[in-house]
């Protein structure tokens, strides 16, 4: 696979350098650790710090979501690999304004170990209170009764949005965590993969798929999904994804949802909107109100082809977090 890069060993460093130089008003790199980035804006004393993080290769996830109304800092890992505890701890120290810090990340073994070690160090060495909310929105990755085993995919965006807003509202740490967990409990995603991505360092495709095939439930790192079959029309794929979600969570006539159609990297916006069109039809037919929609590349997997559909069921509190304005380098909501 063709890539514009200089040296595969330095892709993450060079991306961060470019990112920080491109948006100096928004983001700054901590001198203690190259992989530790925090907001360049003034943060209010007493506000709960919101820390996000994960592997690289998911841009705009996760560094693109540091800014007003979302995260205060991000720890950046290698491609598709959790950051180590060092940058997580440095960001924690930098964004703690006396009210503690919430860690938000996806449900992966590596992230749990590294963020867990950092949280322990923050408590022991720095006396900073840290709480965690883990995203587990991917319906395809484990059965309903084992939701705690599900991985976090595009729905992480809604968790960041909800927690970021709650922190901005002035909620205390326990309340921010409660909102983040509620957002996760009410969020479901289903994805489809059409073509693989390649890691810069190996150049090999992350999974194998035939020219005329698609894979339902494929993971954000190329983890195999639940079903491989011939590529179907956009409408039929949308039907499948939305139906799987609605079988997993009760969303009734009159309920409100936020919808995210998320491209995985190389799927054009045209195709994403064609899928959104059908998602809207299905929800309208069922009398489910779309409160707000997001269509685009929100959390990607390098140049992977495919997309996911995410629904977050809203109560008044979550709706308020969805309405909250955001100003980040890669995402603005007025």
């Amino acid at each position: 696979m063709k890539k514009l890069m200089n040296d595969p060993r330095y892709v993450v460093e060079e991306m961060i350098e470019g990112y920080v130089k491109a948006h100096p008003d928004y983001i700054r790199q901590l001198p203690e650790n190259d992989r530790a980035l925090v907001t360049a804006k003034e943060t209010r004393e007493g506000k709960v710090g919101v820390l996000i993080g994960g592997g690289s290769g998911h841009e705009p996830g996760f560094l693109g979501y540091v800014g007003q109304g979302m995260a205060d800092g991000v720890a950046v890992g290698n491609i598709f690999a959790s950051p180590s505890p060092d940058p997580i701890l440095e960001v924690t120290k930098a964004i703690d304004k006396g009210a503690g810090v919430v860690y938000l990340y996806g449900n992966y073994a590596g992230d749990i170990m590294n963020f867990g070690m950092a949280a322990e160090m923050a408590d022991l060495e720095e006396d900073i209170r840290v709480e965690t909310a883990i995203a587990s929105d991917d319906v395809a990755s484990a059965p309903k009764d084992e939701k705690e085993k599900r991985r976090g995919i595009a729905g992480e965006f809604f968790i960041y949005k909800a927690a970021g807003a709650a922190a901005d509202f002035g909620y205390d740490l326990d309340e921010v965590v409660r909102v983040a967990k509620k957002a996760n409990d009410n969020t479901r995603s289903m994805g489809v993969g059409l073509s693989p991505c390649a890691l810069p360092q190996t150049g090999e495709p992350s999974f194998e798929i035939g020219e005329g095939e698609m894979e339902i439930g494929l993971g954000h790192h190329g983890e195999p999904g639940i079903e491989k079959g011939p590529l179907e029309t956009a409408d039929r794929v949308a039907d499948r994804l939305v139906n799987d979600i609605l079988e997993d969570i009760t969303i009734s006539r009159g309920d409100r949802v936020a919808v995210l159609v998320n491209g995985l990297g190389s799927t054009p916006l045209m195709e994403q909107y064609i899928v959104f069109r059908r998602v809207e039809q299905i929800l309208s037919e069922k009398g489910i109100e779309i409160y707000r929609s997001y269509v685009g590349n929100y959390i990607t997997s390098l140049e992977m082809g495919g997309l996911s559909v995410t629904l977050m069921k809203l109560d008044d509190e979550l709706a308020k977090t969805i309405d909250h304005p955001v100003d980040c380098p890669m995402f603005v909501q007025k």
Partner: protein
Amino acid sequence: MVLTAQDFRNYFKQIVEMIEEEKDYLCELDRKLGDGDHGVTMSIGWQAVNEKLDNELSQEEDCSKVSIVAGKTFLSAVGSSVGPLYATGFMRGAKEIKGQTEVNEEDLVNYWVAFGKGIKERGQAEVGDKTMVDTLEPFFRTLEEEYASSRDFSESFSRAVDAAKAGMESTKDLLSKRGRSSRLGDRSIGAQDPGATSAYLIVSKFQEYLQGELAQAK
């Protein structure tokens, strides 16, 4: 047999070389179960360790320090899941030989048992979950038991490495229960676990190193 910090450096250097040779193989194994980067991750980590061995650690005489810095450096460089796992192994091992400029055979048993147990504890995995614990638990149990009864380190370590190998190979027929590959279900059967493989490479390299040293001594 007595080892010094220089032996730890030499052994770690041999791991660095070995990982470069096995990088593609480890990635290939990982592509069947995960995102295909285990070899790359190991290489990033051990290259960072190599840099420390050449600089900060080049004159270090404390064996435990060499192991601690190796573990911490590996962790900082890779994160991921193997970062905390191997780092915990090398740091728990170091705790058993704290401040020592020389380690004897009994120290080495303690070192490697703590290495294996530390990784198992960090990963919260059991034998049969298709992880590096399938290699490491038979390894440290065999080492502990054999050495307790025979007091023959070389023989005990050799049997422990055999047990590690059998454990690694057993992962081919196992269903993955931990980490990203656990989402594969039945499709994980038939592929050898890359973490179990790198764990075997690391412990078997120590045996090779000792054999090389003994041969030179003769």
